[in-house]
């Protein structure tokens, strides 16, 4: 472990990636995540075996990552919302060809070119695959700078273990903010499990072929079912969520990332006036922590989903609960960051409207 230091979120992702064994970074500039690209340019130069490429476009960057992954390297690219849209074709190919890679999306206000303020408008894109075809992407949602370090490490581990792309979904706030962080020790690349599928020269062994063009429909079908079995085992193994003050709660707020922090601030305020409110914070957005939610719905009859969007995770909550509880929503899209006071007011009025004080 290193000493505690105060670092910017974007830089922390970079350092954590290097420590996780990332040896190729390719990216194209976009605010508010340029500090990550900047950090990687220096970090990769300091490594003997590191490669940094400022690509000519987002499309080029994701395909450079794809190539590096095929050759066996731990590889990463990063961008912000509009740039992530451009990378979707490559992400679909990564999923199809079962290639590990880490993609960082520092979300900003949208749709279109939008603005550069923090937002959570890319939830659908991240959790529904984003590109074409029947696939999933592991999506991790950090809520603190320390968690950025921890989840970056995990993203590389999951990507390798399951041979699938993993996305770190943050926003402009967490990327720009500084908080104390302690990094894990760097991984020893020589001690990682071997990858008996990579394309590293076929001298002395039969050649290997990695492709996503499966013209025979029965072969493509079987490949799709194979991916599904993999996704089911991912859902069993890595689903994760944090609960906060839920034990005696009459109302539970569901929020992730930056929104979860604001919600916590709001919950602290309403607890002071005696309202029994807790928080459920999904850490993995896909797989979504459905079971925790169902379990919770035995006691909790009212949930308030809070997002920095017009309501996207809201749909996963509804799909998970299937009518078991009342689901309410509050959201601010377009790059607006609500204040804890604003959410506290919302909670307060909902609490009384639903007569939750009488339980």
């Amino acid at each position, binding site marked *: 472990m290193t000493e505690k230091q*105060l670092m910017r979120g974007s830089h922390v992702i970079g350092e954590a990636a290097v420590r996780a064994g990332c040896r190729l970074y390719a990216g194209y500039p976009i*605010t508010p995540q340029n500090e990550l690209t900047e950090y990687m340019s220096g970090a990769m130069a300091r490594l003997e075996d590191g490669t940094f490429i400022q690509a000519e476009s987002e499309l080029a960057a994701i395909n450079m990552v794809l190539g590096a992954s095929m050759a066996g390297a731990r590889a990463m690219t990063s961008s912000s919302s509009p740039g992530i849209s451009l990378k979707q074709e490559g992400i679909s190919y990564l999923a199809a060809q079962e290639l590990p890679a880490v993609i960082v999306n520092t979300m900003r206000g949208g749709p279109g070119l939008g603005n*550069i303020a923090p937002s959570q408008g890319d939830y659908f894109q991240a959790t529904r695959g984003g590109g074409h075809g029947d696939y999933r992407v592991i999506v991790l949602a950090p809520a603190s700078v320390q968690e950025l370090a921890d989840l970056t490490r995990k993203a590389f581990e999951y990507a390798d273990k399951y041979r699938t792309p993993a996305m770190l979904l943050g926003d402009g706030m967490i990327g720009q903010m*500084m*908080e104390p962080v302690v990094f894990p020790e760097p991984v020893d690349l020589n001690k990682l499990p071997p990858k008996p599928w990579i394309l590293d020269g076929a001298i002395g062994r039969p050649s290997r072929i990695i492709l996503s063009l499966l013209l025979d429909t029965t072969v493509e079908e079987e490949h799709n079912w194979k991916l599904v079995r993999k996704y089911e085992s991912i859902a069993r193994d890595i689903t994760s969520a944090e609960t906060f003050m839920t034990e005696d709660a009459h109302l539970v707020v569901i929020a992730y990332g930056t929104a979860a922090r604001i919600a916590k*601030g709001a919950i602290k305020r309403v607890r002071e006036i005696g309202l029994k409110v807790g928080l459920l914070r999904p850490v993995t957005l896909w797989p979504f922590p459905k079971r925790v939610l169902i379990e919770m719905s035995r006691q909790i009859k009212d949930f308030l989903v809070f997002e920095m969007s017009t309501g996207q995770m809201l749909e996963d909550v509804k799909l998970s609960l299937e009518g078991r509880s009342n689901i309410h929503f509050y959201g601010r899209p377009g790059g607006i960051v609500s*204040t804890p006071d604003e959410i506290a007011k919302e909670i307060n009025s909902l609490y009384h409207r639903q007569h939750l004080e009488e339980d």
Partner: protein
Amino acid sequence: MTKKTVFAGFGGQGVLMMGYVYAVSAMRDGKEVTYLPSYGAEVRGGTANCTVVVSDEEIFSPVASAPDYAVIMNRPSLNRYEGMIKKDGIIVLNSSLVDRDPSRDDLDVVRVPANDIARKLGSDRTINMIMLGAFVTKTGITTLESIMNGLTEIVKGKKASVMKLNRKGLDMGAEYALKK
């Protein structure tokens, strides 16, 4: 105890550095901290501000909609933040550049002619440390010693003469906080 502070001025005044030094120092004191710089389509010479939260417990929101304290380096920043500061909050003003008093009468105001002091010290670049010295002494949220330690950690390798100048700046700012 959770205290939120806004540091605001224009680019080049060392506003972000001031907040960063404060945040690192408080972290070394064992506090929880967050540092949030303003970011946007910024221009050279434009506005610069950052929010630092220091607490004994987990910090939820790094944003301050109603800061406890404000360190104000120029007049546009006073116009922008005066109305937001918490009731009975503390405001540390760079009186060399801010030519009016806050219109609220509940605020505890410390006036520090930072540019004039810096000129006397022979380096305009000390204005942020002068303001920080006044801020820390007035609020008591950390100590000048912690700030010096934090600064040493951040600017490691800087000449002893530069550190001496910064120390002098901190001390002179501190004096203004003690005046009434």
